[in-house]
């Protein structure tokens, strides 16, 4: 456990430079674009010069990049950063959008695990049969299918023709407990809202999960086969242990690489899905970032980047800890 503490401290120390690096890069890109942000924010051509001047002062736009960046970060972390475009606190905007993104990520992740992992295991058990070939083909197609095209086909089938999904609104139960609508609805026993949420989210989640399902299926298949061909399998059979014991050992060994990838996939899903959220009009963090880019609201954009970086690093940390729990060979 002392090892774990040291490990956490070490990881926290690398956290900060990583976050600074990521946000600074985006900041740099935003700032070098030859535009006058203060004028844009103040209303473009007809902007009141006094307001422009005020904005320049407020956001230190006349000072060197790193000074701008410094003030920006300090304001962001102390929660005093207000977007000049939306006039809202950046953190509040992000946190407001979080439930949608989190919900989408949870649904997608459930699909990835519930479909990808079993498909991979079936493919491995039925290796080199028609079932295996079909699953592998499905995985390859899933991974290479462009999401926007695929999404519109599905919308056409399930919304336009079948009406099995809704494409607008963001259903929430009457009361908030945790802030996550689906969880609150379940806690309140509000099954109507649960149904509405599922109806609204299943299709975008499927679209978002699709490439990862194929990827995970392929990974699980290969690592399962690797584990099956390990020498300890032969020794388990030689000891006369039953199939259930054999598969228990094989599965746990096969899961070691899968857990890492699943963790990264979850991080990726949480990091927002700009395309999916935009197509399905889901007001999540991905959509927020697209809107910020369109409005030249780079302060909100970088707030988003900072938030995503934070999530990504945290999930990485959790994955590393999980990894050490499954695999005793891993040392902190």
């Amino acid at each position: 456990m002392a090892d774990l503490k040291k490990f956490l401290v070490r990881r926290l120390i690398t956290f900060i430079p990583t976050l600074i690096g990521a946000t600074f890069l985006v900041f740099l890109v935003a700032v070098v674009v030859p535009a006058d942000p203060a004028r844009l924010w103040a209303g473009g051509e007809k902007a009141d010069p006094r307001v422009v001047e005020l904005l320049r002062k407020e956001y230190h736009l006349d000072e060197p990049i790193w000074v701008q960046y410094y003030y920006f970060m300090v304001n962001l972390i102390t929660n005093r950063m207000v977007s000049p475009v939306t006039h809202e606190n950046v953190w509040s905007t992000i946190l407001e959008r979080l439930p949608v993104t989190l919900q989408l990520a949870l649904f997608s992740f459930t699909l990835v695990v519930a479909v990808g992992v079993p498909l991979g295991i079936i493919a491995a058990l039925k290796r080199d049969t028609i079932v295996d070939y079909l699953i592998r083909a499905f995985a390859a197609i899933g991974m290479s299918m462009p999401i926007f095209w695929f999404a519109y086909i599905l919308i056409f089938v399930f919304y336009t023709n079948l009406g099995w999904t809704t494409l607008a609104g963001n259903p929430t139960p009457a009361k908030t407990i945790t802030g996550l609508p689906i969880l609150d609805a379940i806690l309140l026993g509000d099954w109507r809202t649960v149904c509405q949420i599922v109806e609204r989210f299943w299709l975008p989640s499927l679209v978002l999960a699709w490439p990862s399902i194929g990827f995970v299926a392929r990974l699980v298949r290969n690592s399962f086969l690797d584990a099956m061909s390990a020498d300890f399998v032969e020794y388990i059979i030689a000891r006369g242990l039953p199939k259930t014991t054999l598969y228990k050992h094989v599965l746990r060994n096969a899961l070691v690489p899968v857990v890492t990838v699943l963790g990264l996939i979850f991080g990726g899903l949480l990091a927002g899905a700009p395309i999916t959220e935009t197509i399905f009009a889901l007001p999540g963090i991905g959509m927020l970032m697209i809107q910020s880019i369109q409005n030249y609201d780079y302060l909100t954009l970088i707030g988003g980047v900072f938030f995503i970086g934070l999530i990504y690093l945290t999930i990485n940390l959790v994955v590393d800890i999980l990894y050490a729990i499954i695999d005793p060979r891993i040392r902190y």
Partner: protein
Amino acid sequence: MTGRDPIIVVRDLHVYFYTHAGIVRAVDGISFTVYRGETFCLVGETGCGKSVTAKALARIVPPPGKIVKGEIIFYPEPGKPIDVTKLGEKELERIRGRLIAYVFQDPSAALDPLYTVGYQLAETVKHHGIVKSFKEGFQLAAKLFRKVLMPDADERVKAYPHELSGGMKQRSVIAISLSTEPKLLIADEPTTALDVTVQAQVMDVLKRLKEEKNLTLILITHNMGLVAEMCDRVAVMYAGKIVEEAPVDELFKQPLHPYTKMLLQAVPDPSRRVERLESIPGSVPNPLNLPPGCRFHPRCPHALKRCREEEPPEVYVSPSHRVVCWLYAGGRRG
């Protein structure tokens, strides 16, 4: 040698691998008998089919390998034969581990890296009904680890394989394999993967436990020194066939088959302090494409015309010494 009470009788065993490249005739018609209580050795160069033969005995040959022909009669008790080739999967599970146990070459690979060695012993004895719970299994593990002279046995039970040295891993494998009190132990090059210094210690443990538990041991090895030290009878394999079988003293004193002679020459004689290893010229034939006639003829210094064309006969030069070679076909003695 103990009585003439056979524990396993193999007759005309054929094990083929059906690969994309063709049929690999890894074991191609071998017969031998192992008697209760003895140590029987299988020797031969790499790839000659020793491991496949060993795995066939409890039917653990991996696919695409198949026993295509032959009988394996196993006598768990004297006079109670079981034909292993005719058993179903459930009956095999009862024989494996419980009656016929294995120790493989590489203990690092044989153990699951994600479970403690004690757990792997406990799950084995629990499954075979030797103990009732995992807790008792762990207690038994500690006891057996002391038996294989594992240092700090009580602590090592809780160790993961990667926390143990090669020798300690092989000791735990031996403890696991013997935990079910099998009748027949098949040790496939049990010390090859270990440091020279630990090899002797591990072999000592095996030898002592064999005596103590009145086990029958089938030992597969490249090491002629080990053969001389451990074995009662030896079978020499070449390209999927047994070419000679004899009691160990006789084989060393009077090897008949040219291949056996070469094998023995290839070993530095410890009494003469020869440093040079006379390796055998040529190499084992490709099992996909075996030469006609005697499989050894391309490398044999005494090859006759007939060796290239006809399979050699099995000649018993004495009731316990047989050789498969044209040189002895006329009842002539080497």
